[in-house]
């Protein structure tokens, strides 16, 4: 349940495998200019197929800070972040998953938040929340696709969970 | 019955007819007729045919409810958990059954022995009303076989319904004990009767306590639903008092209504004492009911003022509220005043019916009509209505069965020597509006 992001391996000798690897594999610990073209996100891979995120295209239409806050060293003007984060430094990691945890409601994570009374970010969304809040917010504003299956196809397990088998009888659910 | 009366038959009213041997239980069960004779009169009575038709439709529906569940016969829903069974069967039947404790208090506690001719009728009315309220409840409960659970298995003592359950159960026991005196006379078990007589005061006082609490508790049940019940029918502070106080005219007027029906349809079963005193007692009961009604009117107004709900009176719900109060409280007060002033017993009897209607309307409004006023109006399913009518018919049939037999409307003559004493009661003028001094001549006890 975490993003699958590993270094690419150019030594692979089969073309098919190379293409597949390019889809799956990305480099994140690089400056903005060296950002990956695509990132495969499979946090919801249980009910949905992984998302192949066209990072290059999105980097063309939006400022880094829209998604990456101050971490890329280009904070939004007047951003709250710069009060504490210097703003012109690039973080060691700008990957979403390095701050936004995959299991935000695990007992351990919640305890670690509560124990740390100095902690400022008490309301940081989990990884899944961060993706969707960030993506859907923009998509709605820009008129980009917002349907669930417009970004990621549902798996068989997803069909089962959503009871795609349900037939629509006349009437409705009983009250 | 009339045919047999013409032929000189008189219903059983003593352990033995003069000069004859003791009657068997079988004889008493058919009122001294043979079974065949009894059956023939029952078949001739058109009212029995109406009952038969109701039962023919209704009893299969009751069975249907128990086989296919509540959902199959009622419109009870997730929004309207309580339908007609409870709003009519429980919430309306219970106040009309307050008569038992009212008359018990008047006779046993305050020593108004002049009320004795109707005391037993009031007691029976109370017992049957409560019993059938429980029958209605059993039909409505999801798992009626678990009814004893709050007494034995799991306890929720902070719940109002826990009080209602315990009080209704204990009060039913008290009422069975009170009415059992008549049964013991009929069965000729003087020892048992003597025992009950000895604990009468205890029974009566427990009756007052239990009635105060659970008549009130039925009202207090709605304090759980402040947002759901229309403010005009809801009062966090006074709901239980509204229910308790309205039960007083409700119970008393029910006695007037039932005694009127009895007088019209069952005169052969009533003895001289009952018939001769009834008009006078009807007026006396109406006085009590009027006092209850005026008190009720005042505390209802206080309820509106206390929560500052005047604004609601100008709405549609306000008109409905004013209709309920007008037809069920204000109009009866005016008519009772006229009836009492001019000794118009007929008017009083009609007014009592009106008051009973008013109390029933109030309970239906509280539990069903003005409940969920912000959602939508629930209309009971026709099967729900039919089952309610069936159960109410069963109530009437049971009522009649007991009135025919037990010494409720007449005195049981254990020894022929007591007869002259009973006759004494006849001497009182029937329309005398001023009751004679307490306990003057009305005696039913051995």
């Amino acid at each position, binding site marked *: 349940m975490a993003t699958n992001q590993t270094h690419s391996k150019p030594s692979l000798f089969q073309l098919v495998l190379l293409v597949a690897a390019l889809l799956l594999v990305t480099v994140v610990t690089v400056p903005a200019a060296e950002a990956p073209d695509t990132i495969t996100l499979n946090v919801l891979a249980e009910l949905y197929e992984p998302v192949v995120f066209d990072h290059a295209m999105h980097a063309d239409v939006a400022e880094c800070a829209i998604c990456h806050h101050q971490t890329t060293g280009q904070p939004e003007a007047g951003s*709250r972040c710069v009060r504490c984060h210097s703003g012109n430094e690039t973080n060691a990691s700008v990957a979403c998953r390095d701050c936004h945890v995959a299991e935000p*409601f695990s007992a351990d994570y*919640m305890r670690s*938040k509560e124990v740390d009374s100095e902690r400022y970010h*008490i309301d940081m969304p989990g990884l*899944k*929340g961060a993706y*969707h*809040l960030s993506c859907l917010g923009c998509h709605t504003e820009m008129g980009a696709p917002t349907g669930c299956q417009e970004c990621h196809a549902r798996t068989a397990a997803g069909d*089962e*969970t*959503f009871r*795609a088998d*349900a037939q*629509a009888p006349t009437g*409705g*659910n*009983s*009250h | 019955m009339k045919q047999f009366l013409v032929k000189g038959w008189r219903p059983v009213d003593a352990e033995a007819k003069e000069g004859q041997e003791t009657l068997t239980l079988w004889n008493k069960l058919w009122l001294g007729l043979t079974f065949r004779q009894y059956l023939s009169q029952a078949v001739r009575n058109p009212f029995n045919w109406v009952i038969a038709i109701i039962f023919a439709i209704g009893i299969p529906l009751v069975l249907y409810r128990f*086989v*296919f569940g*509540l959902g*199959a016969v*009622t419109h*009870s829903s*997730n*929004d309207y*958990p309580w339908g007609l069974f409870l709003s009519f069967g429980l919430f309306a039947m219970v106040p009309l059954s307050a008569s038992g404790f009212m008359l018990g208090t008047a006779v*046993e*506690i*305050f*020593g108004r022995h002049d009320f004795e001719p109707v005391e037993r009728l009031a007691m029976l009315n109370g017992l049957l009303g409560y019993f059938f309220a429980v029958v209605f409840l059993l039909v409505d*409960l999801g*798992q009626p076989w*678990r009814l004893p*659970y709050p007494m034995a298995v*799991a*306890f*929720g003592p*902070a*719940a*109002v319904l*826990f009080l209602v*359950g315990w009080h209704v159960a204990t009060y039913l026991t008290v009422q069975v004990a009170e009415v059992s005196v008549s049964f013991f006379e009929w069965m000729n078990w003087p020892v048992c009767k003597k025992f009950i*007589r000895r604990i009468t*005061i205890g029974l009566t*006082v427990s009756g007052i*306590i239990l009635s105060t*609490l659970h008549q*009130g508790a039925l009202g207090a049940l709605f*304090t*759980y639903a*402040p947002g759901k019940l229309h403010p005009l029918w809801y009062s966090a502070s006074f*709901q239980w008092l509204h229910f308790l106080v309205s039960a007083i005219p409700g119970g008393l007027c029910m006695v007037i209504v039932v005694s009127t029906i009895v007088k019209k349809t069952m005169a052969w079963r009533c003895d001289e004492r009952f018939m001769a005193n009834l008009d006078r007692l009807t007026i006396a009961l109406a006085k009590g009911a009027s006092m209850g009604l005026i008190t009720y009117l005042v505390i209802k107004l206080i309820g509106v003022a206390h929560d500052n709900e005047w604004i609601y009176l100008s709405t549609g719900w306000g008109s409905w509220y004013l209709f309920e109060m007008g037809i069920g409280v204000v109009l009866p007060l005016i008519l009772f005043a006229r009836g009492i002033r001019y000794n118009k017993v007929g008017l009083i009897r009609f007014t009592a019916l009106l008051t009973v209607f008013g109390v029933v309307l109030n309970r239906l409004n509280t539990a069903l009509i003005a409940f969920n006023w912000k*959602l*939508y109006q629930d209309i009971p399913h026709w099967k729900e209505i039919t089952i309610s009518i069936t159960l109410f018919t069963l109530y009437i049939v049971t009522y009649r069965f007991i009135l025919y037999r037990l010494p409720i409307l007449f005195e049981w003559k254990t020894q022929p020597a007591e007869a002259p004493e009973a006759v004494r009661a006849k001497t009182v003028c029937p329309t005398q509006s001023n009751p004679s*001094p*307490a*306990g*003057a001549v009305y005696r039913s006890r051995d």
Partner: protein
Amino acid sequence: MSKISRRRFLAASVAGGAAITLAPTKKALAATFEGYSEGMGVLVDLTRCVGCRSCEAACNKEQKLPTPDLPFDDPAVFDQTFHGGTQKRRTTEKAYTVVNRYEPKDGSQPVYRKIQCNHCNEPACLTSCFVNAYTKTREGAVVYNSKVCVGCRNCMVACPFNVPAYSYSSAFNPMIKKCIFCHETRLKQGLPPACVAGCPQEALTFGHRNSLIKIARERMRHQPGRYIDHIYGEKEVGGTAWIYLSAVPFEEVGFDTTLQKEPILSNVKDFLSTVPMVLAIWPALFSGFHLLAKHKENHAGDDHQNIDEEAHK
């Protein structure tokens, strides 16, 4: 037990009781119950919900509920109305949570609102139950024991949020059906309920109720103007474990904003407090009336003198 030992036992009890009673403690009991401090809750942020109904699907799966009439991704349910168009969908025996769509008055984007049991701090269903079928667990869930339920449905009458549903269709084992915060299968293991885990937007934030209120305030502070200045459920009917933030007035999205701040139980206390008083005072009062009446009777005239004595011997 012999008389002596019973007496000794009583003496010991009295002494013990006196010792406890006379001990100079200054600790007073709280007048109201405001929930267990470690109780969990969920913060529902209506501004985040997109109406995907993943929560409904997750709930259906977790609680092994029957197949719905329409698939969970069918937006047609948002157009369903009931009872002459007055009612939107509600919780039923087949659905412990439902999401409804509302069109705000200002014509902005539709708002979606999730309904489920709010798991009150002092639940009306619990206090109205005469067989104690409900329990407020330390984890914050309001759970229900169908084994003792008689089916009086008082809890449904009492619930200010109209949440509990009843399986009216069952003839032999009908029971209350409602959200139980996934208590047995998840909450007890420290896991968030299935709906929270399934929410892609983190419109549902799981945590200690106390922390969630801080988070809710934090959101209102950091995004001025985004939210109505009210945390629904913080105070309503004594506080609920599930609390809500909204950008539009709560009454426009189906919330009852007329609810009292005190627990429902406080309405009933007036009556409950009269019960022991009636039990204690009435016997003496009415026995006294009886004695007075009897006394009067005995002195009223020779004719009546024996009647009562005879009757009550």
